[in-house]
């Protein structure tokens, strides 16, 4: 299988504070990987480094074989490195349909057509309908996002990411804020993502992780603690100590 995302020796210092140090990992096509770690482990910083929101102090990031370390966040998006946000970041006054249209048009770089009609853009309506159908959002197409239930907003986040035709998809706690009883819907939606995608999910909930991931990467205090197949990582005593242990104590 081809390696889609390769991170080598990634480090980030804020002044004297080292928040990420020497993290290496890779994702192959079809991977379903979970990134876990206790609060403050540097998960969000890691995602920001990989997506280009923050410049790294050292290290390299390769996307589908090409070095993207120096590229801006928007350039990485255009090359297929797409993320969803932990807190749904959507355009409150736009409808669900308009979100999808914008994502598809932006992906195809057709957003500088000043006199074209969105409604008459060839193929757009079909693709929007298919994406929304995949996420079970068809009936909500005309609902302004501001009055959408939170769980549906999370599904829309995933639908938006999907519409960008990602090679690598980073889902930042896709079920955060969704009642536990409903998180299965989000997982179902993730199950329906194209199989050749590499998906990295940042997640707290070990129950979700065990249902979703085939492999796990564990961060602790900005360092890579361990990585490997889900079962091996979950059985690793170091992981139990820093992550599962601390969580168990907290409850």
């Amino acid at each position: 299988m081809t390696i889609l995302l390769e991170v080598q020796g990634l480090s980030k210092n804020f002044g004297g504070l080292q928040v990420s140090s020497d993290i290496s990992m890779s994702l192959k096509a079809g991977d379903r990987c979970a990134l876990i770690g206790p609060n403050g482990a540097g998960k969000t910083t890691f995602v920001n480094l990989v997506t280009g929101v923050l410049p790294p102090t050292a290290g390299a990031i390769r996307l589908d074989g090409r070095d993207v370390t120096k590229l801006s966040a928007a350039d990485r998006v255009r090359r297929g490195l797409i993320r969803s946000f932990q807190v749904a970041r959507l355009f409150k006054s736009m409808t669900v349909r308009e979100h999808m249209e914008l994502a598809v048009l932006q992906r195809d770089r057709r957003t500088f057509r000043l006199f074209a009609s969105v409604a008459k853009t060839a193929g757009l309506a079909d693709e929007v309908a298919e994406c929304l159908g995949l996420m079970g959002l068809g009936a909500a197409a005309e609902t302004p996002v501001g009055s959408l239930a939170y769980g549906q907003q999370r599904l829309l986040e995933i639908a938006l990411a999907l519409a960008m035709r990602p090679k690598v998809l980073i889902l930042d706690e896709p079920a955060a804020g969704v009642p536990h009883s409903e998180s299965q819907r989000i997982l179902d939606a993730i199950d329906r993502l194209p199989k050749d995608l590499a998906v990295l999910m940042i997640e707290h909930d070990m129950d979700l992780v065990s249902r979703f991931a085939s492999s796990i990467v564990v961060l602790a205090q900005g360092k890579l603690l361990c990585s490997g197949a889900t079962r091996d990582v979950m059985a690793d005593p170091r992981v139990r100590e820093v992550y599962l242990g601390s969580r168990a104590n907290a409850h």
Partner: protein
Amino acid sequence: MSATMTDGLSKGTTGPMTRDTTALAAPRRDFGWLAAPITGALGLAAFWLFPEDLGLMTRIAATALYVLSLDLVLGYCGIATLGHAAMFGTGAYAAGIAAVHLVNDPLVLLLIGGAAGGVMALVTGGLILHARGLTLLMLTIAVTQIVQEVANKARDWTGGSDGLSGVDPAPLLGLFRFDMFGRTSYLFAVAVLVVGMVAARRIVRSPFGLACRGVKEDPLRISALGGSPRAYLVTMYAVAGIFAGVAGALTAVSSGIVGLDSVSFSWSAEALVMLVLGGTGRLYGAVIGTVAFMTVHHILAATDPFHWMLFIGLFLMGIVLFLPGGIASGGERLRALLARKGEGDQA
């Protein structure tokens, strides 16, 4: 809302491989396209009803186009500006100077005004649109002050504080002379306004317009979709500059003079007042606001020359207090109210 929620829930339980592409909700009906034909029809009706007031109504039509251009910037991009007169005035002076020295075909003059306004917006927008909020507001004011000072100092071209006079356009299309009663001017202004409304609506409904609305709400989210927020803002600013420049040229052509007040801070602020009065982000709100403000202004100034400013103030406060979304939002509120009543009757 609860209905859509349970709807979504039942969909989620239909199993992982079910594709639900059939149940896409139907698009909502949009009657915004009616605004341009209604404006044209009312404009023609006014031509017969108020033949004495053609001069005022011509100014209203040209100003409506100017306020419409501000709506493109404020209502669809969220750019707060108190410097929109810079583009209006540039268009007016460019058309005026061209009319005195070069050509006098009215349509060519509008093109020159639009090009000048567009270039001014592109250059200044490229320089200042990295800023947001109050900083941007200050920068837009500064741009207007600079343009006004340049117009003031370049007396040989602009006439300075005396204003530029001697704009004498040739007959429209070679057929219709600009008569002393202002009939041609008025019909020309209404026609340009209607064309402007159609073009503006086309732009805001384009993929570009959709992206601009996205930038207005969350520029960072647009970046995450792979777009450049600033490129959209500068482009829309330039497009609005073209509209404002045409409006300025239209004023110059129909009135025959261009003064320093056309690049003033107060003219920028007045556009903002008229737009907020009518309602932002709808296009036709700009026309409604301009007609309401300038008509009330005219009537009050004529009936009570001493206290009319007070009544204008009360009028504005009344609208802002009771219809915070502007006059155009009144119709939508009414419709929502009737819809709710209808549902109640059914139940």
